């Protein structure tokens, strides 16, 4: 099965290499998946190291961890391909979460593969690629430990995972741990522009900016959004992108929160109204507000927590079914109130009495 899988991967690459196969549109993500390490964007330092490995051979065991869509699997595949060339097919065992990877598979298939003799040039070893390794069970990982050591002369392991803490410590101890950082906006933009050029996509500056913004450093998502926007509207503009992405524009929400912090309630409500008129649901707006508040730089941590408290309560109310504009407005008003002098709100009682 692994062979089948790797071969499909290769097909994809072929299509990639040949440019678009006529009449058959691949997802751009696959079509433009890098084939060589040189094509990989971002994490330059780490990639440089991988390139050296690819050149010199003798790959250590590696764990690559990081957010989705930043090139973990791609780098491993590229590395394997560059290391092994034509022997890729028989010297690579690739297993991902869609394969069964219980302890039995580790004990039988992986171990069996590790014991298999494949003639390779010196400095090259068979490679076992375990994608999404954080979904492997503890037992299966345990079973890998000695296997990794005993057959290290002929087999090397590469893990890709989102959370390295799901990999048991003994395995981490055996591996070079490469942490991939989120891609910077510039890196994503660069790649997007290449694709835009290759596909002759009409796009505007703010369209790209919107793509980058919505992707939050996830290259895969950026490319997918690019493709959907293009096939849906034919033109990539900021508005079109957000229509595709379909979430309240975080920049606007951020501005709104900021205004709340500065007690500019009227402007904040205007922004809210604007968002509301765009047709976003209460739920979307409040979730975005929550996310944005958590990482807004202009507020102190204490202020953030207070804001989140209010937003959280509003979130609960909305979930309870009160999905009205009034709730959101109330929330915004309360956010403004947090930073205001409480005295302003006290009634001038003494006059009455």
């Amino acid at each position, binding site marked *: 099965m692994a062979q089948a899988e790797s071969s499909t991967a290769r097909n994809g690459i072929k299509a990639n290499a040949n440019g678009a196969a006529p009449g058959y549109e691949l997802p751009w993500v696959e079509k433009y998946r890098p084939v060589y390490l040189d094509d990989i964007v971002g994490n330059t330092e780490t990639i440089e190291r991988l390139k050296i490995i690819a050149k010199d051979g003798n790959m250590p065991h590696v764990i690559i961890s990081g957010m989705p869509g930043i090139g973990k699997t791609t780098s491993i595949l590229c590395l394997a391909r560059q290391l092994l060339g034509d022997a890729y097919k028989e010297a690579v065992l690739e297993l991902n979460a869609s394969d069964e990877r219980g302890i039995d598979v580790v004990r039988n298939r992986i171990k069996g593969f590790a014991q298999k003799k494949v003639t390779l040039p010196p400095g090259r070893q068979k490679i076992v690629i375990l994608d999404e390794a954080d979904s492997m069970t503890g*037992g299966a990982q345990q079973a890998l430990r000695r296997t990794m050591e005993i057959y290290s002369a002929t087999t090397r392991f590469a893990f890709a995972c989102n959370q390295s803490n799901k990999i048991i410590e003994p395995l981490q101890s055996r591996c070079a741990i490469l942490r991939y950082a989120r891609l910077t906006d510039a890196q994503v933009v660069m790649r997007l522009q290449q694709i835009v050029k290759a596909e002759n996509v009409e796009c505007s500056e703010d369209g790209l900016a919107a793509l980058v913004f919505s992707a939050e450093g996830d290259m895969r998502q950026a490319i997918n959004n690019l493709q959907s926007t293009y096939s849906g509207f034919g033109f990539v503009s900021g508005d079109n992108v957000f229509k595709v992405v379909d979430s309240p524009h975080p920049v606007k929400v951020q501005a709104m929160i900021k205004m709340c912090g500065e007690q500019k309630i009227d402007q904040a409500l205007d922004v809210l109204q604007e968002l509301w008129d765009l047709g976003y649901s209460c739920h979307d707006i409040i979730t975005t507000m929550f996310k944005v508040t958590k990482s807004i730089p202009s507020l102190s941590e204490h202020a953030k927590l207070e804001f989140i408290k209010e937003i959280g309560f509003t979130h609960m109310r909305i979930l309870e079914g009160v999905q009205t504009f009034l709730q959101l407005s109330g929330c915004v008003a309360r956010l403004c109130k947090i930073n205001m002098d409480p005295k302003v709100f006290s009634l001038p009682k003494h006059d009455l009495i």
Partner: protein
Amino acid sequence: MPADIRSFFGGKPAGTPAKKDEPPAKKSQKGRKRAIVDDSDEDVVETKPKKTTPRKKQAQREPSPVGETTTTSEFFGKSKPKRSEPVKSKPATNGSTATPSKKTNGTTASSTKTPPSKPRTNGRTSSRKKNPPKPADEIEDDDHAFDDEDLEDDDVFEAGFKKGPRHDSYKKDLDEDEPLLPQQRRAGRKQKPTKADDDFEPEDEDVEMEDVEEEAVKPKALERNAKDKPASESSSTKKRKSPELDDEEDDYASPKKGKAAKRSPAKKKTKKDEVQDSAEVQAILASIPTIRAPSPPPKDGQSAKFNWRTAGNATAVPSAAGSKEKPVGAENCLAGLTFVFTGVLDSLDRTEGQELVKRYGGKVTGAPSKNTSYVVLGSDAGPKKLETIKAHGLKTINEDGLFELIRKLPANGGDSKASAKFEEKQQKEAQKVEEMAAEMEKEERRVGGAGGKASASGKTAAASGPDSRLWTAKYAPTALNQICGNKPAVEKLARWLRNFPKNQRTGFVMGGADGSGIYRAVIIHGPPGIGKTTAAHLVAELEGYDVVESNASDTRSKKLVETGLRGVLSTTSLLGYFAADGEKVEESKRKLVLIMDEVDGMSAGDRGGVGALAAVCKKTQIPMILICNERRLPKMKPFDHVTYELPFRRPTTDQIRSRIMTIAHREGLNIPGNVINALIEGSRADIRQVVNMLSTAKLDQSNMDFDQGKQMSKNWEKHVILKPWDIVTKIMGGGLFAPASKSTLNDKTELYFNDHEFSYLMLQENYLGTTPMLASSIHDPKERKLKNLELVEKAAESISDGDLVDRMIHGSQQQWSLMPTHAIFSFVRPASFIAGSMAGHQTVFTSWLGRNSTQGKLMRMIKEIQGHMRLKTSGDRHEVRQQYLPILWEQLVNKLQEEGKEGVDEVIDLMDSYFLTKDDFDAIMELGIGPMDSKDVKLETQTKAAFTRLYNQRSHPLPFMKASNVIAPKKQAKERPDIEEAIEESDEGEVVEEVKDDEDEDVDVTKDKYIKQPKKKKEPAAQKGGKGKGKKAKAEVGEDSEEDEKPKKGKAVAKGKGRGKKA
């Protein structure tokens, strides 16, 4: 004691880390070893004498003989003569081992002869003195110290050297702070054990050590005396008899040699003292503004308490964090200087400060000593440290002073004496590294030759390209002395393996010196990456065993362990009989050892494997070595008592460093020592990972500076999921909320998601245990209390809010999208208020779980009661609880309590009128709170018995069938055939219960419930069947035997009843 002797002591410390031990038994290599010893000992030199303050020593030593002789005199009387015997025998070995050292190292030789006599007497007596005064509660510390003790048994000569410093430290501990803080003490002592670990000679003394541990100090000493003469003699003689080579090899002669070697640095140091600092440096040093240390607080009962609180300072957060810019200085400008941090600094937190010093080549120690160059003083410094500072007249500077120092001092510390010393040390280290590298190369060539041969016979693929191996494989230890740390454990392992055939012959009845003789298997446990598997394989190889390995990649279920191992357990290795072309048959290889790796990795699919393996351990005929990470897991329980335990600990940085330096050197990597330290610390002494790091670093760089190293170890930090305890400690006591902290809100939320089911419960359990940071700036105690209260109130409020959120998540709505909100509400926000030092607070596991289940149980009771009362009352559950129950308690429970037997009738009538059952009566009792607390209710046994009897005799009205009882139609159908039986059983159940009630009233309710429930309802059924009471008498006979089957029967009864009703 004169200064020269102390410096002599200073030289002695056996601090020789593991690495130094014996070379592969070649004389030519002595020199090398020597070098190592030299180096490592310097570290110790610096830390050791710290404890010995000249002033104190005089003060203390004089009184001690007088004051303590009472207890020790007899002991001395006995011990001295005996002691001297081994001494006599020992010098021979000493001499023999010392000679080679003389040959190689002329400089030290001169001093070898003279010292022994003097220190011996000195040291010995003083150490003896130290023992008796130890209070009993200190005994636990003895296990740290026992290593030392055993040393002295082994070799008095050497013990003499040992004692001096140790004695001092004890002394210091004892009289400096009577209300010793265990932690501090332990920390203080730690140095000793490590040192002793490294070079102690655990031949036959281990048993004694154990004895020593268990017994009070005095008996211990006496007993040891009695024992150790033979022991030490035998050990020495035995060793002597064994081939000379052997002697050299396991004798770790290093302590002795080390001693000789160590003297040299000491001497050099004194010489160097004459080298004055250059004027320039002096000027700089003088220009550093020193501050006056506040005088230590008076010593009284209070001080101990005070200490506890300030103990948390290490994590306390500077008030003006980040306000000052960190200075940039010349490289290594602090070289050779030793710093101690105490108190809370103005703008640095302590780790930052320490890192700063380390970055510039300085050394940071935990406690001030006379070797400390500077004490960096902050507010709230520990009183003990202040005292030491005063005693030694140490220079104290504040944070600004430190910054000054860094800015002004020239690179490599200029030409000050400290830096000269440092340089010398560096040189020595470099030299040693080079020697080791050379040796490694030599060996590699040798192995390479063998490998070439091997590859000729097609044995190893690795031989084809030398660099195609992983570094971890390439630089795996090939000799015992290359294993970093855990020397004693490795030694024990080797000894056990060596003695295995002998023990086998004697049937594993003789424990032997360290008690390992009765075991057929050992279990090695410790964290990953510290060489457990390596050690096991290496020892097996060196002892001439052929290894059969099984690890987690093999299936090890019960069946397979039983059948699969059978083939191994009583066989011998073919290697003893046959060999490949042109190779010699190694007879010794006939022996097999079974290494079971990753025993804790036996998981799914290995069902019963652990048990089976433990069983195998009991009767195996070949030695078995088990290896695991977590020995304390419940599933490892079966190995208790079947295996000999060998814990492996993380080696110290010093133990690893030279090995890593050697590797780096061999690979042409230029990495300064402090960077290596940072790497090692960053990986928490995981040797394998450090080697991996080096190999990765080597790819694109040939040197590494401090920041790169830090960065790398940070990147490589192993992420593991935190346990609830750690989570709560980290969020509240970890300084995450300090203004200087760089952790974002997302990081904190992430903590919650480490264990989102427990983290907030744990926080709730422990949130009162902190000293809130936000209130710490307030000095007026009253105001501070008020502020604390306010903070706690806010936290509590937030936790309550969190519960509201939780209800929506875990309630009927299942709004999981609220999880982040819940994280903030129930975890991050409360922590933001009360975060602060957790010193003195023991993290408690959440009690919510238990409470919750109790609540559930009580709730069920109320429901039941309300259900029964429903015909007569209109209240809901809460009303019943709040309005009816107190009155019912008064009328039922209290009545019985007050009136005794007389009230029984009335009580039962009342109960019947409300359709309450006996169950409900108990429930009412349990539900009482306040003055009605069931603990305060005292019913006479007689009353109880009468009540039960009467109750059972009567028939009671039944309001209705509970739905739950009627539900069972399916089962009913199944059981229809044995109606009779069911009813009968129910009767029995009833009787049984009665008896039980008489005997123990406060049986737990759940059990009763099963039995009683049926009763109430059954009664009618029984009547219908016309069997009820008549049966009881009969049943009574069989009650005993029936008792344990109660629960089951109860159920059956219930069913029967239900059926009865229907009928």
